[in-house]
């Protein structure tokens, strides 16, 4: 208790002469720091309304609401987040999880109001003063992710291993890989609307994640009776809109579907799907063609109790899936797995029966309660350029048919394929394999009207074709096949500038000065297929209506104007498998409605 103890506290007085620390104008002098988490901003144009922000918000502060000027379309739900500042806690998890990176926080932090109802707003849509603030919280970079951005790499055969045989090249996911891949899903469900069959994608991905294959299979069969096939060759439009793909790589939805189907033994299908002992309702339906549309219709009709008979022109079922798609992409045993299950539901199939030749459509009309036609596109189209009548000019579809049937086909040393679609890639790669077997090297050129960026074939198809040493040279219009001494010398092409005119009609423009010549002694045309509906006799045709490109007009139930006839698949939509499946599914319910009300 020294005198010091009494005096030292007074040293505080020396602070009297220090400059005051008071902020002069606190309301304006202190903007939030660079990373400050203030009020929300949203780039409405980038936002796709996936709802991840809503899902992660622990306070249920975010609602998804429709905003004027942003319509629902593929890959965009048309909804935008609305934030309730009576709930928000400014944690910015919504920003960090945002799949597109559109949502951020500004550094503005003052919002005072007398009315409590004011504190709800759609960021970006209401012209708030902080909409243009540069500063504020953004998702930290790099290596700061709430879900995996990278796909699990799918193991496939090396080009050297695969380029001379028809073994399946994609190996499929292991359990670990599939679960890691499935883990990336944010369960927004934006993909569902884009899938032609509206499959429950997030649901079956969840089944993969939770390793519940039986549930996964049930989800698959709700909308798609050909999962093994679709899991391999679907055009996976869903993946193009996947919200995870905006910042990283989209989910491998197709491979996950395949994973589920691969895990379940075909012997267990009936037990899992509960399809034993379906009661027959005594009504019969004829299905023409055992392609995806026909099989899908047959499957769902059988589940509804109808007795279905399929008429197939070839010796085996599957249609284009078997006869159009090469085995290295879709092995025949996998096709059989899906088809055998459908046939096991009590579906009859008559092989080698062609409508119009072995039995007429009117006979079917009289014998069955309803008819579904899913006959597909089996006629190859020709470019019609000079030289196409040569014997070594082939139609891709015919060649693919023959390869499937195991027939010997002509394989030249140098081949040019005209066309840039998936079928063109299929024939290119099939022929490349045959060339490898025969000559030990590949000399394939695929040429297309479309430019490199607009090639209709899937990106990976083109990539893999190139890996197999085929050349894909896009942007050329075929002019003439040069024939000398009765032998094909090659194909003359000119640069294609544009394909469609201002009205969107097919009207290619060429640069006649920019020429090229592809040497070849065999040419394959693959510029699309046409339908063969000659089996529809004139009297029936009179009952039908036809739309553009000769397609039969159907209503939303796939029902044609001849009420007993339902039409689906490539001949009305597509061409691809998944549209066929969707059509078949709809037709089944359409037929059921039609027959119940008859």
């Amino acid at each position, binding site marked *: 208790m020294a005198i010091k103890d009494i005096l030292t506290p007074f040293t505080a007085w020396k602070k009297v002469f220090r400059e*005051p*620390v*008071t*902020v002069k104008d*606190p*309301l304006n002098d*202190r903007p939030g720091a660079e990373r400050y988490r203030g*009020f929300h901003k949203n780039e409405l144009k980038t936002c796709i309304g996936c709802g991840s922000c809503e899902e992660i918000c*622990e*306070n*249920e*502060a975010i609602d998804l609401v429709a905003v004027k000027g942003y319509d629902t379309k593929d890959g965009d739900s048309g909804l935008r987040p609305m934030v*309730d*500042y*009576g*709930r*928000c*806690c*400014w944690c910015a998890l919504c920003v960090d999880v945002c799949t597109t990176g559109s949502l951020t926080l500004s550094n503005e*932090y*003052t*919002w*005072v*109001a*007398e*009315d*409590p109802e004011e*504190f709800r707003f759609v960021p970006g849509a209401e012209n708030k003063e902080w909409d243009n603030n540069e500063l504020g919280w953004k998702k930290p970079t790099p290596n700061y992710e709430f879900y995996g951005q990278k796909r699990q790499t799918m193991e496939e055969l090396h080009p050297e291993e695969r380029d001379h045989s028809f073994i399946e090249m994609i190996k499929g996911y292991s359990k670990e890989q599939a679960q890691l891949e499935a883990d990336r899903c944010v369960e927004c469900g934006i993909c569902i609307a884009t899938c032609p069959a509206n499959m429950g994608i997030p649901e079956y991905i969840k089944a993969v994640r939770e390793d519940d294959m039986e549930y996964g299979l049930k989800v698959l069969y709700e909308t798609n009776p050909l999962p093994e096939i679709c899991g391999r060759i679907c055009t996976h439009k869903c993946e193009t809109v996947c919200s995870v793909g905006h910042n990283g790589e989209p989910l491998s939805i197709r491979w996950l579907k395949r994973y589920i189907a691969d895990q379940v033994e075909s012997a267990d299908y009936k037990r899992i799907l509960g399809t034993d002992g379906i009661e027959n309702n005594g009504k019969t339906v004829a299905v023409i063609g055992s392609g995806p549309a026909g099989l899908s219709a047959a499957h769902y009709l059988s589940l509804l109790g109808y007795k279905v008979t399929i008429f197939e022109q070839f010796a085996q079922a599957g249609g284009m899936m078997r006869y159009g798609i090469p085995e290295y992409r879709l092995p025949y045993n996998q096709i059989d797995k899906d088809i055998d299950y459908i046939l096991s539901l009590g579906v009859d199939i008559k092989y080698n029966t062609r409508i119009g030749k072995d039995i007429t459509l009117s006979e079917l009309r009289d014998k069955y309660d309803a008819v579904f036609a899913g006959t597909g596109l089996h006629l190859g189209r020709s470019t019609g350029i000079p030289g196409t009548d040569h014997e070594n000019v082939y139609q891709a579809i015919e060649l693919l048919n023959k390869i499937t049937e195991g027939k010997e086909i002509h394989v030249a040393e140098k081949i040019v394929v005209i066309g840039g679609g998936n079928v063109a890639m299929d024939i290119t790669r099939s022929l490349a394999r045959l060339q490898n077997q025969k000559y030990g090297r590949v000399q394939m050129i695929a040429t297309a009207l479309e430019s490199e960026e607009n090639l209709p074939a899937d990106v990976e198809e083109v990539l893999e074709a190139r890996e197999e040493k085929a050349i894909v040279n896009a942007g050329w219009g075929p002019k003439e096949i040069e024939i000398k001494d009765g032998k094909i010398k090659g194909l003359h092409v000119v640069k294609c500038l544009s394909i469609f005119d201002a009205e969107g009609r097919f009207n290619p423009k060429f640069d006649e000065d920019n020429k090229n010549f592809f040497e070849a002694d065999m040419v394959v045309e693959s510029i699309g297929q046409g339908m063969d509906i000659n089996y529809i006799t004139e009297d029936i045709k009179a009952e039908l209506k036809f739309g553009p490109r000769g397609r039969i007009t159907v209503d939303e139930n796939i029902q044609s104007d001849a009420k007993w006839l339902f039409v689906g698949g490539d001949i009305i939509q597509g061409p691809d498998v998944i549209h066929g499946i969707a059509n078949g599914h709809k037709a089944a319910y359409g037929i059921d409605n039609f027959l119940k009300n008859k």
Partner: protein
Amino acid sequence: MTNENKNHEKFLHEENKIREVKAPDGSIIKVDPLNDYFLDDRPEIKKPKTNKIVEKFLNWSRAESLWVLGFGTGCGSIEIPPLMTPRFDAFRFGVAMRPTPRQSNVFIISGYLAVKTLKRVIRSYEQMQGPKYVLALGSCTINGGMYWDSYNTINRLDHFIPVDVYVAGCMPRPEALLAGFMKLKERIKAGRGEGANEYAEKFDWYKANQKKIINDWNMPDYNW
């Protein structure tokens, strides 16, 4: 007036229950502590002065002397010390802290209110001198905020006491709180700071709301 709600009886403290007491002369007196020890008048509505100039002057003086009750109810109270100390120095804006409700006219509800605190807040609010104002901080007072699904915090403050100004944030910074005071001043000067009268007018509605969630209504209906 009191002890009407049967639900409350279960939680009534022993000393507040109605009981019989023997007077020195031997007579039995019935005692209802909640009724007998407090006045049970209802709050009065105080009409503004008819003279516009006088009323304007009064409002100006009210707005420039905001005396805040030192009762931090939630997280937001941690931003009150910075506000009252040299850096933000709210005193220069006429904002001062007072320790008791009797001396203050502004109540800062600084965030969530647990049911147990709400009861004290209501008592304190009723004891404050009118005209009195309520400043609500943060999400919690607007629509429940973080604790929207909690069994022990209220979601909407305006159901229990009238609120003048809301400040968004979780929690709001001292600057935002200061902006809230500015807004409150504006409101008072414009003659809209009528919270106390609103409370008196809709007294029954407020009481019903309060009693719905405060189970042990261990106090008189109105404390002033």
